[in-house]
């Protein structure tokens, strides 16, 4: 309590919101969430003038961009936010996902063609395998080394794309897409309309969020957070840390691969120019900005990172500079990110806390948001 970095005084509005949210029953939460989700689905159709990125950038495609960043951020959050493993080469997994999609659907590829909807899970599987391959040797290393090795991995994947089977700059045209034709004869999923892609991605985000949430509220999520908090103590308390780090890595990779495959499908073209290591930094910024270890936070962060440069086109060129500065400022004043880490790690936590103390758990007092009164006697 005494060691909190406090930048602003008083209980903030955000904290009040949080308390109110946690005080709600499941039903009330759903009653709030369902309309919100419907609104989110409707966004590209509504194209609200204040949000619109047009005429500079097709709004539906901008929304897809936001969604794919959000998916990336959820995956990277498992690795960075939950398990506390600094992965600077996440773009590598994204690229692998995109190339798997291209290799099995593009007419430029020699490989057997598969339907896009089959390729999607295949991309997930393949990136997961790559996650294990990269993780097995490197996750025995400590933090700093891991960051450097993963950075190298991201670069290696990009360089491998220069090799002839992956066609370097020429790339793969005509990457596949999900089936379906509209009344006017056009494909439902095409490269000029982002809306169906956005809907598909948002749906996948919801599924992934539920699955990742299941893991979080289980021994797996607890193992991850324990590793993040104190790896040695975790191991000594019986957590097989290496195994769970590897799982975090593989699951994060799989989600990155999924996002990459969606990206390849929407844009219809994959070549070696699209997977700069710098983009890894943007991904990381998406996680850290909103608050790593906080699902709402990373969704928020991803939205900011993806949306702002598209909405304010004049900023696009400077996005690395702007987000870089924003991150530095944030790290100085609010190292836990906008929202701060928050996870629920018990499947039956709600009931348990109610029974024990008659209120939900302490949601956050680690931040500028809550001025936690000093209570209890201690020593």
């Amino acid at each position, binding site marked *: 309590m005494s060691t909190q970095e406090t930048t602003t005084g008083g209980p903030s509005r955000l904290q009040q919101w949080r308390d109110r949210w946690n005080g709600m029953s499941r039903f009330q939460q759903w009653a709030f969430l369902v309309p919100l989700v419907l609104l989110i689905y409707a966004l590209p159709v509504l194209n609200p003038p204040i949000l619109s990125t047009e005429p500079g950038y097709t709004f539906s495609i901008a929304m897809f961009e936001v969604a794919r960043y959000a998916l990336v951020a959820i995956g990277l959050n498992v690795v960075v936010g939950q398990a506390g493993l600094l992965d600077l080469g996440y773009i590598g997994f994204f690229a692998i996902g995109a190339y798997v999609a291209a290799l099995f659907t593009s007419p430029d590829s020699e490989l057997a063609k598969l339907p896009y909807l089959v390729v999607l899970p295949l991309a997930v599987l393949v990136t997961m395998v790559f996650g294990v391959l990269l993780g097995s040797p490197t996750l025995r290393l400590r933090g700093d080394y891991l960051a450097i090795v993963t950075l190298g991995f991201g670069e290696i994947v990009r360089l491998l794309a220069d090799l002839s089977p992956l066609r370097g700059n020429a790339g793969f045209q005509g990457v596949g897409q999900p089936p379906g034709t509209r009344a006017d004869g056009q494909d439902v999923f095409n490269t000029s309309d982002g809306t169906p892609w956005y809907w598909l991605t948002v749906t996948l985000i919801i599924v992934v969020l539920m699955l990742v949430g299941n893991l979080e509220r289980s021994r797996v999520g607890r193992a991850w957070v324990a590793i993040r908090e104190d790896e040695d103590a975790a*191991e000594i308390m019986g*957590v097989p840390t290496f195994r769970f780090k590897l799982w975090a890595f593989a699951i994060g990779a799989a989600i990155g691969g999924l996002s990459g495959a969606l990206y390849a499908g929407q844009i219809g073209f994959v070549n070696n120019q699209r997977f700069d290591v710098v983009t890894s930094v943007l991904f990381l910024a998406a996680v850290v900005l909103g608050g790593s270890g906080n699902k709402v936070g990373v969704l928020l962060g991803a939205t900011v990172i993806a949306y702002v440069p598209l909405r304010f086109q004049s900023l696009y060129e400077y996005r690395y500079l702007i987000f870089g500065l924003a991150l530095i400022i944030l790290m100085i004043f609010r190292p836990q990110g906008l929202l701060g880490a928050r996870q629920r790690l018990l499947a039956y936590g709600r009931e348990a806390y109610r029974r024990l103390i008659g209120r939900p758990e302490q949601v956050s007092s680690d931040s500028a948001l809550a001025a936690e009164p000093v209570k209890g006697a201690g020593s």
Partner: protein
Amino acid sequence: MSDVTDTGAKPGGEVDDDAEVPAVGGIVAELRHMSAEERARHEAEVAEVVAPDREIEVGVGDTLLAMRDVTLRFGGLVALDSVSFEIKRGEILGLIGPNGAGKTTCFNVITGVYRPTAGQVLLEGHPLGRRKRYAITQLGIARTFQNIRLFNEMTALENVVVGADARHRTSVLGALVRGPRHHREERQAVERAMALLEFVGIADRAADKAKNLPYGYQRRLEIARALATEPKLLCLDEPAAGFNPAEKEGLMELIRTIRDDGYTVLLIEHDMRLVMGVTDRIVVLEFGKKIAAGLPAEIRENPAVIAAYLGVPDDGVA
């Protein structure tokens, strides 16, 4: 305030409603409104969850853990010099010695943090060998840390459940799809963790992040987390460090209860008077060597021990 010890599952704990009220709430507060009979039943329930195996009384005296000529060097420094001793099932063994004597290092060897340069540690006759640290915990050795090492961003309850996870077998896939084993283990773990928090007397702060707990609570939380792994041997590294005398006495009471529940305890403690009061036998280390072992009364009279302690002014002989 009397300290927070009196809330646990002490068999025959005071049932005096006018006793000074410990600063606890929730279930524990409810306890005060129960009849003596109800309360006894509740305490029995808590005790049942805390120490499910306590009926399996194994004869006190059979060796649980043995250190066999354990030597550990850090470069030129010999932190442990051919140390041998045995811990018998059901006892509280005190490990004492001046600062830097090698007590914590001893724990580190027992829990697999360091591997002995020479010698062996045997649990129930089997050498720990090159087992991983988590595997040693799963074999039944748990510990607390001299410098508290909780999972700060987790609630107290979550911290304890991590300990309980050492016994869990839910796979990642099982957790992903919330399979039946996941549900069963989650439910049991939460029940057990809640009981343990009550047992160590900190249930009222179950929902607080570990880093926001008062110091005394953090120490007790470490014990609850270690107990959650269902250890055969519980190693406590100066669990009462920084406590005032009343709090220390409360903690020793808790340790006695833990032993009575069927656990074997290895206790590092600086305060000689306390050690004498709570332990069954004592091993004394100095400069990495075992200089004495025996009953508390013998240790108190042992000239080598007295010399060791007098030689180090900052130790709490008082």
